[in-house]
């Protein structure tokens, strides 16, 4: 009986010893080498399994001691057979039994509650962390979390964890069918859970290798993995809740003498799946039937004796060989490096093979990504971020407002100010002040790694991107040194953009033409985002524009005046001319006709001068007589003496302005 009791201890101990390195191995590698969320959280069930194994181990020791005590007691009882004197005394002497009872009464609930509570807290914190990652706009966080990950190594690690855990769990599950190993069932359950997570991790890894870039983007895959992880965490949460609830159920459980006590923390949910007769058991049977792969007590023991060392070795070898496979993703190019020496061939996207470390290694560069930096503001390179040049007096007073961009309001942090040549200012006029203008200019330079020249990118410069930035700034300073401020701001803005891009590109091409100095970078585009005079003079520049507007207004007004005046004077000239023409017409036509008439009159006159004269005279009188307005007085006397009287009478009638006119 003693032997069997010791066997329980032994299995618990072995199980513990196997689990511990697996746990450490998982913990260490899931972070460093193959960042996989699932493998990372499979540490949880492993820790629980380890704790439960330890509890089982401890309890089996107590049970053994209890048995030994019982035996001892029986032997003593045999010796003293017939003497019932100390019969009542015996119960208090059973120290081991009491110890076991105390353990069941106190240690188990405490361990269960601690595991439940701490587990829930841990699951909650992880779940909230991963939930943030799975939201759609956390691409950069995701990329960071999975940076440098290789799907192949994730698969390798998952399988290395899956296989031993499944074997161990199956073995413990089978073992727990005998009453004395009953307590190993709980650890078996949790090892199964851990194995399950590793399995899911492996499946996701396979999906990544198989379907990447065809069906999913890298990011979509990561989001999928995070979502699966969150579901696994929820499952763990349910199991931890069950452990806590188990404490309550324990009080209401009917107790019969013959039923075998289960540990309070044993999961009934997992029991449904993994217990003998459960789903997993049937799967194990199916495997057994198909492959004759019997996982039993004895076979496992033999396996342990012969197989553990080779197995561990095999795992190491597999992991080592996994280093032979690496992936070049779409948009990337790679190099194979043999004993430090970089290979000549550039590797295109796909799964590639190499010798394991230390013989060969690989370097991968993203050649599709459009990289960029902005000139004219503090840069991403630390050395240039100091405020280069004079601080702008307006800069501190205004906060940055990016919605409305006007020259007079600060819209970019840490603007650099460039010196620009001046035109037409003589030295004498300036005195001490240098002959320069100042200008703020921001341009975004976009560039790529040349996919045909990643050697140069990797090995010619410590930081080729920093070099490009420096060259760009140098060329900009050089360009502006003899440019004209006003034309940059005005009509030559577009030409300036092209000229700066050309200057940088030319310098880059000069470097790239020599394999020793090549940078492996190519400029994609340069766009001048903003160009304006420094804030404190911007207003003056705007006043020039308004002056120009004023000028045009004034000119327009003058033009309007001109047009009116021209039209008016033309009209006047027409009037003058028409008067003259009228005069001419009068003078030419009338005298002519008069002359013609005169010729006729003269003819008549010559025939009878007195008669003609009389006729003409009488004609006039007749004509006058027809006019009623002319007052006519006929005086039938020789002298005009009575005339005065007549006029007097007329005056009385009201004709005050009467003229004495008489013919």
């Amino acid at each position, binding site marked *: 009986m003693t032997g069997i009791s010791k066997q329980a201890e032994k299995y618990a101990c072995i199980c513990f010893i196997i689990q511990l390195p697996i746990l450490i191995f998982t913990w260490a590698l899931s972070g460093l080498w193959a960042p996989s969320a699932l493998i990372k959280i499979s540490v949880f069930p492993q820790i629980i399994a380890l704790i439960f194994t330890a509890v089982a181990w401890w309890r089996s020791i107590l049970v053994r001691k209890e048995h030994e005590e019982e035996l001892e007691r029986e032997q003593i009882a045999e010796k003293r057979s017939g003497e019932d004197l100390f019969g009542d005394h015996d119960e208090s002497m059973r120290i081991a039994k009491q110890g076991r009872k105390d353990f069941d009464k106190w240690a188990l609930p405490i361990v269960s509650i601690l595991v439940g509570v701490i587990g829930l807290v841990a699951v909650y914190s992880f779940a909230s962390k991963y939930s943030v990652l799975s939201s759609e706009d956390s691409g950069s966080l995701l990329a960071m979390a999975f940076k440098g990950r290789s799907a192949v190594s994730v698969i390798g690690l998952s399988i290395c964890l899956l296989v031993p855990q499944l074997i161990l769990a199956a073995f413990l599950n089978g073992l727990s069918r005998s009453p004395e190993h009953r307590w190993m069932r709980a650890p078996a359950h949790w090892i199964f859970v851990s194995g399950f997570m590793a399995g899911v991790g492996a499946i996701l890894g396979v999906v990544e290798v198989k379907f990447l870039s065809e069906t999913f983007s890298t990011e979509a895959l990561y989001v999928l993995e995070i979502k699966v992880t969150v579901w696994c965490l929820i499952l763990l949460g349910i199991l931890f809740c069950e452990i806590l609830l188990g404490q309550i159920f324990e009080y209401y459980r009917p107790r019969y003498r013959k039923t075998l006590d289960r540990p309070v923390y044993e999961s009934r949910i997992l029991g449904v799946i993994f217990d003998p007769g459960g789903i997993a058991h049937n799967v194990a049977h199916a495997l057994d039937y198909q492959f004759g792969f019997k996982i039993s007590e004895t076979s496992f023991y033999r396996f342990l004796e012969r197989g553990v060392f080779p197995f561990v070795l095999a795992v190491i070898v597999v992991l080592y060989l996994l280093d032979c496979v690496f992936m070049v993703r779409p948009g990337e190019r790679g190099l194979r490096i043999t004993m430090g020496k970089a290979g000549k061939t550039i590797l295109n996207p796909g799964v590639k093979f190499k010798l394991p470390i230390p013989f060969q290694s690989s370097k991968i560069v993203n050649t599709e990504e459009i990289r960029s930096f902005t000139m004219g503001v503090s840069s991403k390179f630390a050395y240039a971020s100091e405020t280069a040049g004079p601080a702008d007096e307006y800069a501190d007073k205004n906060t940055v407002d990016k919605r409305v961009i006007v020259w007079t309001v600060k819209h970019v942090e840490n603007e650099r100010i460039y010196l620009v*040549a001046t035109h037409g200012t003589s030295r004498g006029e300036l005195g001490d002040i240098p002959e320069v203008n100042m200008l703020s200019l921001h341009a975004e330079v976009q560039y790529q790694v040349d996919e045909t020249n990643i050697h140069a990118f990797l090995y010619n410069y410590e930081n080729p991107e920093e070099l490009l930035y420096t060259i760009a700034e140098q060329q900009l300073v050089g360009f502006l040194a003899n440019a004209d401020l006003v034309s940059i701001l005005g009509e030559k803005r577009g030409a300036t953009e092209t000229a700066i891009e050309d200057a940088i590109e030319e310098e880059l091409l000069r470097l790239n033409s020599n394999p020793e100095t090549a940078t492996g970078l190519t400029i994609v585009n340069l766009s001048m985002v903003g160009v304006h005079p420094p804030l404190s003079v911007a207003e*003056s520049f705007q006043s020039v524009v308004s002056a120009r507007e004023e000028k045009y207004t004034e000119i327009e007004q003058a033009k309007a005046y001109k047009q009116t005046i021209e039209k008016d004077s033309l009209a006047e000239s027409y009037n003058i001319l028409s008067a003259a023409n009228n005069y001419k017409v009068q003078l030419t036509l009338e005298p002519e006709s008069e002359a013609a008439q005169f010729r006729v009159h003269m003819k008549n006159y010559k025939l009878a001068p007195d008669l003609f004269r009389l006729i003409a005279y009488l004609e006039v009188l007749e004509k006058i007589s027809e006019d009623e307005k002319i007052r*006519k007085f*006929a005086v039938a*006397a020789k002298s005009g003496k009575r005339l005065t009287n007549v006029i007097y009478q007329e005056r009385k009638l009201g004709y005050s302005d009467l003229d004495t006119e008489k*013919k």
Partner: protein
Amino acid sequence: MSTETEKKKSKFVVALIAIVSLIFIASLFFYTVEENQYAVVIRLGEPQIESDTSPGIHAKLPYPIDDVWYHDRRAMVFAGNSGELEEVLTKDKINVIVSVYITWRVDPNQVVTFMNRVKTTENAQEKLTDLIRSTKNNVIGRHSFSEFINANQDIINLQEIQDEIYREIAADAQELFGIEVRSAGIQHFGLPENTSQKVFERMRAERKREADTIRASGRAESSRIKAEADTKRAEIISTARAEATTIRAQADKLANQSYQEFAKDPELASFLFELEALEKMLNKDTYLILDTTTPPMNLFSEEYLKKMTAPAEEGK
């Protein structure tokens, strides 16, 4: 059966030990040089000048005899540890703030010199900082401000100045430290705060002047246009007047010809004109008093009545 497993086990252990010791021995006798590295074998403290520095695997003697020194072979961009932005005086005593950068690497032909005199990147940067600063001061002090920034292509000399800086740094760096300087350039050229303020003021004044000039030119242009308009007006009207005068003269001339007709009988003409004038003169306020001496009223005169037996008639 147990002896067989024992044998197997011992074989395995031997193999394992063999592998481990092989790796250890290999690490003693070989060294690898990465693509981005230089390596120099130091045999008993004596650098082996002819040692192979190309990337790949190379043989050496075990540690206490041979040691290997490595350094990055890639070029680095460097602008100085301190005084990256430094106020410097030009030849014509204008303070400017200049930042000079260089790209440098260990000279492939002088790796040993570099190793002996500099050894690390940090040391190199320290030494290069001094070199950059002194060269910058020297070279910039030799040139006047207008050579740095100028609209005139003939005066500006920026490229030449950068070349000068490069030449001086490169020569010293190579000779003294075994460093190959590949390029040098001015990546920032600015003015100190107070000078900048003056420049701003000048720019403002210049802009104001520009604005004033523009306004004045606007006024001038406007006046010109107006004056032009006035001139045009005068011209148009004068032309019209002149033309009118010509027309009138022509008319008068033509009229003259007609008047010559009248001269043929001045007596009749004057009678006719008198008659015409008389007709015009008589208007509504005229009282016309006709006595019997004036025809046709003479018909009422006594002499005429005497002459005629028939009664006379009076016309209105």
